């Protein structure tokens, strides 16, 4: 047997260790010198948003700006939310639509993804090419004929154009889940299949419990995408009581924004908050999901 030691000994005791640690220190200093200012630069817009949201009108136009206003008007959040437009209604609408669409996406996309990852069938490769092809297709190509179709169906000024399509899959999520499912050892479900388990059972009891990072990724991307969806509610929804947050926020900006930056920032921040919360709740699973499938939004 060959001796197990093949590596050279670690340079713990060698004289150039000293030099190396100095070089390492300089290297770290350089990294911080470049990365820290950037990180601050990337963070201050959100801090500034908060700072503006807490100001009185006369403080807003101070130049140079005041970072921590005195007094801190936390009441701006309440006033901006309640005194102009019915934002509670918009919030409820956005929540209902977003949650329903995520559930629809999870169900329809994991079914299709499982089929593409595990089941053998004629025409499968061709159909999967269609999934990939529609991922690249700009939505502008379909938005006009979809508008015509939904208008003919009498779906204008209703939530149906926003809420029906997600139950029929979303190519990007199908692809993401399929990539993840492919990474799960096939022996597991082949054993289950030999024991007589049906495809549905394998998906539900075996694949899905092992796919939490990928499912979390779908939930987070689904939440961000639906919460921020602007074009579809903009072209379909007319009635105020059916409107969603994204469009209502822009209406707010158009009607009251120029004179009320503090309210505009306060309400925008409240609209943004759920996205940040969902991200932080799912972050651990989410980052693993991206790393494992090599996908971004």
């Amino acid at each position, binding site marked *: 047997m060959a001796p197990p030691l093949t590596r050279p000994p670690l340079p713990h005791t060698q004289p150039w260790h000293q030099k190396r640690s100095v070089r390492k220190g300089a290297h*770290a200093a350089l*990294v*911080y010198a470049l*990365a*820290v200012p*950037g*990180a601050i630069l*990337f963070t*201050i*817009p*959100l801090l*500034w*948003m908060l700072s503006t949201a807490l100001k009185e009108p006369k403080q*807003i*136009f*101070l130049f140079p*700006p005041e970072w921590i206003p005195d007094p801190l008007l936390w009441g701006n959040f309440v006033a901006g939310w309640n005194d102009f437009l019915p934002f509670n209604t918009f919030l409820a609408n956005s929540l209902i639509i977003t949650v329903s669409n995520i559930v629809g996406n999870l*169900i*329809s996309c994991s*079914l*299709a993804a499982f*089929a*593409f990852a595990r089941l*053998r*069938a004629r025409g*499968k490769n061709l*159909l999967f090419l269609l999934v990939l092809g*529609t991922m690249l*297709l*700009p939505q*502008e*190509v*379909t938005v*006009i*004929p*979809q508008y*015509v*179709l939904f208008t003919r169906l009498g779906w204008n000024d209703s939530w149906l154009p926003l809420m029906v399509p997600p*139950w*029929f899959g979303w190519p990007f999520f199908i692809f993401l889940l399929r990539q993840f499912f492919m990474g799960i050892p096939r022996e597991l479900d082949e054993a289950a299949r030999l024991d007589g388990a049906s*495809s549905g059972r394998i998906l539900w009891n075996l694949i899905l419990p092992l796919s939490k990072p990928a499912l979390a990724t779908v939930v987070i991307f689904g939440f*961000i995408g639906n919460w*921020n969806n*602007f074009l579809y509610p903009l*072209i379909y929804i007319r009635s105020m009581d059916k409107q969603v947050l994204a469009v209502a926020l*822009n209406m707010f*900006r158009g009607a009251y924004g120029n004179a009320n930056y503090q309210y*505009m*920032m306060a309400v*925008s*921040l409240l*609209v*943004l908050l759920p*996205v*940040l919360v969902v991200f932080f709740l799912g*972050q651990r699973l989410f980052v693993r999901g*991206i790393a494992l499938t*090599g996908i*971004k*939004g």
Partner: protein
Amino acid sequence: MGLTAASTRPRKRLSLRQREELDFYLFIGLWLVGFLLFTGGPILASLLFSFTNWTGLTTQEWVGLENFRKLLFDDPLFWVATRNTFFYSLGSVLLGTLGALAVALLLNQKLPGTTLMRVLYYIPSIASGVAVSILWIWMFNPQVGLVNYLLSLAGIPGPLWLGSQQWALPALILKSTWAIGANMIVLLAGLQAVPASLYEAAKIDGAHPWDEFFNVTLPMLSPVLFYVLVISTISSFQILTDVLVMTQGGPGTATLVFVYYIYQNAFQYLKMGYASALAWILFAIILALTLLQLWGSKKWVYYEDQAA
């Protein structure tokens, strides 16, 4: 008895196979129906629309290639929109990719605080949508906005940004770079997938960090970099929300971009046929650019499994 066993077993195996095929079509059923109704059907319809003068109100007439002729030779706004979109795309893709690469390289180190910094760089990219467009209207406020305040600290008088013909489009590019975090995460994953043995080998050969970057990191990262470039290009051509909220295509036509022009034609002027033709030209441009990048990638993207 032996005979029946022999004759049922193949049939049973066949039916298992058929069962699997049936399952396949049941499982993709929702997607398939959705594809036919909401994507495939509309694509065909859109193609048909693009050869008509349909306005959504009047009856439609077949006009052949008239829409395309008018777009290419008779509509100066089409060329304005095309030029603006290419300018925006070039700026945001270059800055976005290089910026993300720089940050990913900096934060791909085992140093205290890098995890926190990754989160800080990443957050803006998930904070998207109307709320962020509104934030950036405020950021670009020429008198008291943060951007011009920071410039003033460096002694630079800031421009009017969104109110300026010259600076409105660069402002949108600048805003887009705030979201490089998404690309950064993908590039970081790519960097971490580079085998440590390659770096060790480079060290043993006495390679300068610079050589290490150009001869190890960059080639190994090139497939991910290529992916980031393609996806960024595609999404930059589809910029809409920022324009709808921040500039409405203005001032003048300074930020009239392709998708905004489609939106105006379809939903403001109700020229559905004309807008469909525009959408197809956009699709053709995106497809051509993607193919061009794919072709160009053969010269610079290194795939390990294809290396000779």
